[in-house]
Each structure stands twice: as structure tokens, then as C-alpha cells.
């Protein structure tokens, strides 16, 4: 999905050729190629393909939010994901910059530094899992990691094997504070995952382009039959002690689980990680 203005053919060929060489060398010597990644979904995909990024935007925060696959030690930080430090990127002399299409610094500014590959995940078509698979194929082809790519996609298919559940209806949510929750629905990666696993997302309301809606906790009580999958952090203590929380149908029936951190805007590795949590609940 290379578009003309993102990458010129000559630049692409030069980048791809030099990358072929570095990744070849990477395979033999274990040294990483010179790739700077500005989005976490692409960073985790790259790591899952067995390549170490030279730098990832907001690397320290990645370790808290995405957690796995872990960033290799020594991965450098190049500033914010939505506006990385262009001078810091230049000083690393990268051979490829990976970025999310339609988000962050304009490709023209990045292209002045190194060849850029912009991949889409969250688009108007609202198929993040499909695009995440496509991103694995694209990166595997670009970086000569076809075998690893095929293995990653096979892992995903295995992870997405349907689960048999007596209560297939769930709600995936995260607490923004003790009064507002984000509920993930159509257009979010985790919505695609639970549907593939044969579960049913009880949230049928509208969602934004990233596939979530915000509301008060009474939204949850509207779907009393749905199991609550709460992505950490856990509900704040004042809320858990309140009469409202104790009156929630799911809480009274014990139908809720608190899941470890997982990147809700992630790629294939996050989808696999989240599937694992579903098996465990």
C-alpha cells in the first residue's frame, strides 16, 4: 500500500535494498536494523517479526501500556508519537521510518530524513484486525521476514480459535476516571477479536473512528447479561465502595473480570495477547 507521495519508487528501492542488507546482517549477527517506529502497533508487529527497532516513540510508556512483546533493551526514545523529535530521528540516521497512516507528523517532513512507510490501521472501513494482518504481510515482505510473518499470522489464527461459552455476551471497557468509562465496540481491534472467537459484544451503540464510546457506568447496567471485561487499571476504590457499583447486575452476579494492560489500539501481537486473556477468564 505504498502511495506515491509517501515514498518515491527510487527511495523505496534504495531503502528496501539497504534494509535487505541490514536485516540479512541482522539475521546472521543479531544486530538490529536501523528502523525508527512512530506507532506502538507497528513497533510490536516489528518486534514480533524478530526485528529490533532502533527507536520507538514514547518507548518508556510502551513498556507500561503495551507490555508485550517487550521492547529490546537499548531501544531509544524519539519523543511523542503524534509529534516526534525530527532532529532526534535524523541523528539516528535511520534507513526506514514506520508510521501510522493519517496520524502524527506529516510524511513529507519525515521523508526529508529517511524513506517512510505509512501503514493504515484505523480507517473509515473500521476493520482494524484485517488491516493489522495486512500490516504483518506488508512488513514481512518489505523486511524480508516472510517466514516469521506467516508464523505470526498462524499464531493469530490459533489464538482466534472460538471459545465455547455459556454466556457469550461481553462488554470490553476501561475506566477513564471514577465517573466515565470507555466501552470498545465496532471498529476496535478487541471487538474484532471477540467476534472472531465466537463471543458477542453487547455494545451496539455508536463508536468513534478508534472504535470506542464514552459514557457513565449506567451504560453497563443496560446490558445485565453481558460479562464485564475491564482492562486495567481496575475501577477506582471510591466507585467500588459505592452503592451504585454494588447494585450493578454484573457485580452482584460476579460476572466481571479485570484483565492486565493490553494495547487497545494495537496490532496482531496485541490481538494475540488479548485472546490469551479471554481464554483465561
Amino acid at each position, binding site marked *: 500500500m505504498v502511495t506515491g507521495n509517501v515514498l518515491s519508487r527510487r527511495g523505496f528501492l534504495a531503502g528496501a535494498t539497504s534494509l535487505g542488507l541490514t536485516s540479512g546482517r541482522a539475521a546472521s549477527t543479531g544486530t538490529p536494523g536501523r528502523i525508527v517506529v512512530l506507532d506502538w502497533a507497528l513497533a510490536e508487529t516489528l518486534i514480533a517479526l524478530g526485528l529490533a527497532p532502533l527507536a520507538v516513540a514514547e518507548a518508556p510508556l510502551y513498556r507500561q501500556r503495551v507490555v508485550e512483546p517487550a521492547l529490546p533493551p537499548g531501544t531509544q526514545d524519539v519523543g511523542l508519537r503524534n509529534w516526534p523529535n525530527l532532529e532526534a530521528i*535524523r541523528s539516528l540516521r535511520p534507513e526506514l521510518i514506520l508510521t501510522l497512516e493519517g496520524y502524527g507528523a506529516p510524511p513529507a517532513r519525515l521523508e*526529508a530524513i529517511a524513506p517512510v512507510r505509512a501503514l493504515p490501521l484505523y480507517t473509515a472501513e473500521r476493520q482494524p484486525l484485517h488491516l493489522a494482518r495486512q500490516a504483518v504481510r506488508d512488513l514481512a515482505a518489505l523486511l524480508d521476514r516472510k517466514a516469521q510473518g506467516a508464523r505470526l499470522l498462524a499464531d493469530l489464527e490459533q489464538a482466534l480459535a472460538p471459545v465455547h461459552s455459556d454466556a457469550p455476551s461481553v462488554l470490553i471497557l476501561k475506566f477513564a476516571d471514577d465517573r466515565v468509562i470507555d466501552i470498545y465496540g465496532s471498529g476496535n481491534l478487541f471487538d474484532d477479536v471477540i467476534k472472531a472467537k465466537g463471543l458477542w459484544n453487547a455494545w451496539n451503540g455508536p463508536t468513534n473512528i478508534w472504535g470506542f464510546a464514552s459514557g457513565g457506568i449506567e451504560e453497563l447496567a443496560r446490558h445485565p447479561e453481558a460479562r464485564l471485561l475491564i482492562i486495567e487499571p481496575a475501577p477506582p476504590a471510591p466507585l467500588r465502595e459505592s452503592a451504585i457499583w454494588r447494585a450493578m447486575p454484573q457485580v452482584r452476579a460476579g460476572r466481571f473480570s479485570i484483565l492486565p494492560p493490553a494495547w487497545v489500539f494495537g496490532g496482531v501481537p496485541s490481538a494475540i495477547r488479548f485472546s490469551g486473556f479471554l481464554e483465561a477468564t
Partner: protein
Amino acid sequence: MTRGTLFLAMLAAGLAILAIGLAIFNLTVPEPTIASLPDEFWQIWRAESLIPRLWMALISGAALGLSGLMFQQVLRNPLAEPATLGVLSGAQLAIALCVLLAGNSAWLREAAGLAGGLAALAFVTLLAGRRASGPALLVAGLVVNLAVGAIFVLLALFQHDYLRSVFIWASGNLTQNGTADLAALGGRLLVLVPIALILMRGMALFAVSDESLRGLGANASRLRLGFSFWPRLYLPWSLPGSASSGSSGLPLRCWSQEWASAACPAGLVATPAAGAVTLLLPTGVLTPIPCGLLLLLLLWQRRIPEHPARQVLAGNRRPFPAVLVALTVLAISVAFSLSETLHLPGLDAAELWPGRWPRVLTALSAGVMLALAGVVIQSLTGNPLASPESLGISSGAGLGIILGLLAGGMAALFSGAVSGALLAFALVVAISARNRFAPGALLLTGVAFGTFAGALISVIIASGDPRAFVVLTWSMGPTYRAEPMAALTGAAVTLLACLSFPLFLRWLRILPLGTAQAQALGVRPVITRFTLMAWVAVLTGVSTLAVGPISFAGLMAPHLARALGASGPGMQGICAAALGATILVLADLAGRLIWFPYEIPAGALASLLGAPFFLWLIGRGR
């Protein structure tokens, strides 16, 4: 009772009935979606959330409306509102720090909010010192607001998702998870309301000037501090919805001059009632939009009386040494900024040149443009709180960016900003033309815009949309986004501005004397005001498009120039331009170096570093 007063009394009664009616409506007619709630949950939710929420809206709205009225009376400034003295930003910062460092419990948040608000107040009061005149308090409050706001914005920038709860608070989410908050608020009001009622009787004093008060044997400064104590005591607790209900009195106040007096009994009922109505409206967090529209409508329909302009913080020393120091610092920082490679050992300056010169040139031009625009708008309106942003241009651009982002994605940002700024200017011109471009109408129109632009920004960030981050960064003056073409355009406009500024000096000297005097001296107020306004609008628009709305340079550079002793618009202009450019170039440089590889937006850093310097100057001046 005159006909006008009778009308006002009826309006007050009408608003109060509307507030009660809205509350009853909210209780008896459940939203269709609530019907789908399980019955036993609905019973508890109604008692623990729905009813407390309504009471919270009524009480907070009324109390904020009243506070706004008192602040305007005591400070004698139509732009004053509960946030003016730095209390709200102090509370907001303390809550943010508390959420980050100590945890997110309701009890802790409240304690932190109280402590932060009171600390900000103590600071403002200390700064204004014993000469607590209206303008001195306002300027001190403004500086604290800007500095605290900058710290807060930096926290939010680097801890974005932890701090979403703070934005949810700021966007006026009144959701209650129990009756505890309401009980606490009610307890406090039992004490505070009687005090307020006693104070109100004395508020009429502030309708006369400080000099007259002194003639009556009263100390205006001590009175002012005493009288603003009640709203101060209340504010740290007045949790959400402050943006909408604090300014809810504005439409009422421009309805009639009589509203400006807190001693008017109808005003005493109507302002709190309007505050309560604002918070009870079913529009929720989008309430500032109808409020802003109402204000614009009223401004369109009614004549705003012209206030005589006042000169603030007039200087008398010779500012040449300060200008020379500023220019030297400017030259050194430009040279250093263009060539440094402190964090980038592998690169030489030549490689960085293509990325560096646009941002340095943009910071420099924006500093000069905003400072000149600030000098002109403050002289034109005679209001120390006026800044280039007061024209509503930056707010218009901000709204345009948000709408562009929501409608067309990242590609529509620039066109959204341009059309937003143009629309805002057209609207401000249309409205203030009906008032012959009188300063009061001009500033109120800008405030109306700012109110809903600010509220919309809070709402979009509270929504958690990752793209909202773009709006947040933009609002902080990120010079690092500067493009070569934009930098050159900005520089060209700056040059034209510097060349044309001397043409306005005579007008700027004469206009503050008042319309009648100006006409006697052969200056036609309408044409001159419009010309100056258009000139300020062009400078503000160009710099906003280049670096976003940078409050500090435009607001503070004129004050700094005066504090350094520049008197007269000409000297103030030169002095302010040199200072404005220096502040922004230094802020851009420091923002790049302090937190590498993270870049701190120049606008936020300018407020943070410029505020202490400004306060030191003010202190030395005394």
C-alpha cells in the same frame, strides 16, 4: 420601581421558575434509554446519581453565577469571572498533581483542589500587595493563571491519559456516584450563603471609584480583598462546570447596565438562576455553545455603553538599557539556537539548518507580531486583560481546527483554521460595528468565542480520541511545526507590521482619551478603531496559523514594556516587540533542550519562564 427594574425582576423570576421547571422535568421524564435499565438498579441509581446530580447542578450553577457577579463588581472589569484570580487553575493543577502522585480518590481530589485554589489566591494577593487595585489584582491573577496553566498543560501533554479525568472534570461532567459530594457542598453553603447575603449589601460601594471611597474614609484595597473573600472561599469547591456557569452571567450582564451592580436585587436572583439553568440544560457538556450564542445574539441586539479607557501601570523610567539587553539576548539566542547540537553529537549545524531556521524565524516573527498586536489592543480597549486573543481570531481558528479534524481529518486542519479565523473576524466586525467598535463590545464578543472554544477543546480531549492530542499540542504554541513557506510569510507580515506601526501612534495616544475628546482632536473613532482592529486581526491570525494561540507574548510583552518604564505607545511598541521576540526565541530554544527528545511547546514554556521574570519586574517596580 421603574419599568426597567420591573422588567428585570420579571426576568429574574422567570429564570428561577425555568431552573426549577428544568429540575422537575429532568426528574420526572426519564430519557428513553434509562427505561431499559433493570428496575432494582434504576431505583438505586436514581437516588444515588440522578437526584444528587440535579441538586449539584442547581447549587453549583447558582453559586458560580453569584461568584461571577461579585468578582465583576469588586474588580470592576466586565471580563472578570471566577477563574480570573487564578483560583481555578490552581485547583486544577493541584488536582492533576494529586491524581498523578497520590491517587484518584474523591476525598484526596477535593483536598488538593482546596489547597491548590487557596495557594493560588494567597500568591495573587501577595503579588498584588497592599496596592490591591482592580487592575493589579487582575494582572497578578492573570500571570498566575498563565504560569499554572502552562505547568498543567505540560503535565497533560506528557501524562495525557492519566489526566483525562482532569479534563472530564474541566468539561463540566456532573455525574455523581453517591451523595457524599453533595452533602459536603451543602454543608459549606449553609455557612457561606448567609455571609454572602451580608456582603452583598456592601457591594454597591464598588460602583464608585477608589478615590471616592477614600474620600468616604474607606480603604479600597482592603475592602476589595475582603469582598472577594467569599467567592474565593467557595470557588475551590465549586467543582465542575465552571467554564459554562461562571460565564453564564455574561449574557445577563450585557442585557442591561443595572446587572453590573450586585446591589440590584433582581440581578441577585437572576444571575444565580441563570447559572443553575445553564447547568441544568439537557445539552450537558456542550452548554457553553448555547451560552456563547446567546451572548453573541445579545451583543448583536443591544448597545454596549462605552467605558472610558484607563491607562494601566504607566511607566516613567527610560527603557533604553532594557531594550538593548533584550536585543543582545535576542541576537545571541538566535545565533546559538541556529547552531547548537548539544543533544545531537553526530550531526553538524549544516544538516540541521533546513529544520532549524523556519522555527527560529517563526518564533521571532510571532513574538514581534503578538507584542505589537498586544500593545495596540491594550491601548485601544484600555483593558489590562485584553490580548490579541481577545478579538476571537485564535478561538475561531481553534474551533475551525476542531471541526476540520472531526469532519475531514488531519488534512483539513489548515483550511479549518483559516476559515475559522476569517469567520470569527467577520462575526466580530459585524457585531462590534453595531456598537461603533466600542471596546466593551469588542472584548465581550471575543470572550463569547473563547468560552465555547475552550469548552469544546475540553470536551474533545475528555472524549479520549487520540487525535484530540493534536488540538492540545496546537493550543500550546508548538514552534517546531513551522514550515519554511509559513515562516517566510510570517516574517514578511512582521516586517510590514513594524513599518506600519508608527502610522498609528497618534491614534493610540488620542483614542484612550474618549470618543468626545478624540473627535475634538480630529480623530474619527469608528474608522480608526476599525483600522486598528483589522491590523491586530491580521497579525494575530498570521501568528496563530504559524504557532497557535500564544497568550503570553501578546498579553505580557506590553505589561513588561511598561514595567520596564516604557511610556507612550511608540516606546512601548519597540520595547514590547524586542521583549516578545526574545521571550519566544528563548522559549523555543529551551523547549528543545530541556526534555530531549521530547519538545516542550514554546507557548507553554514562555508562560512558565516569563511569568516569574514578569513578577520580579513588578515587585522591583514597587
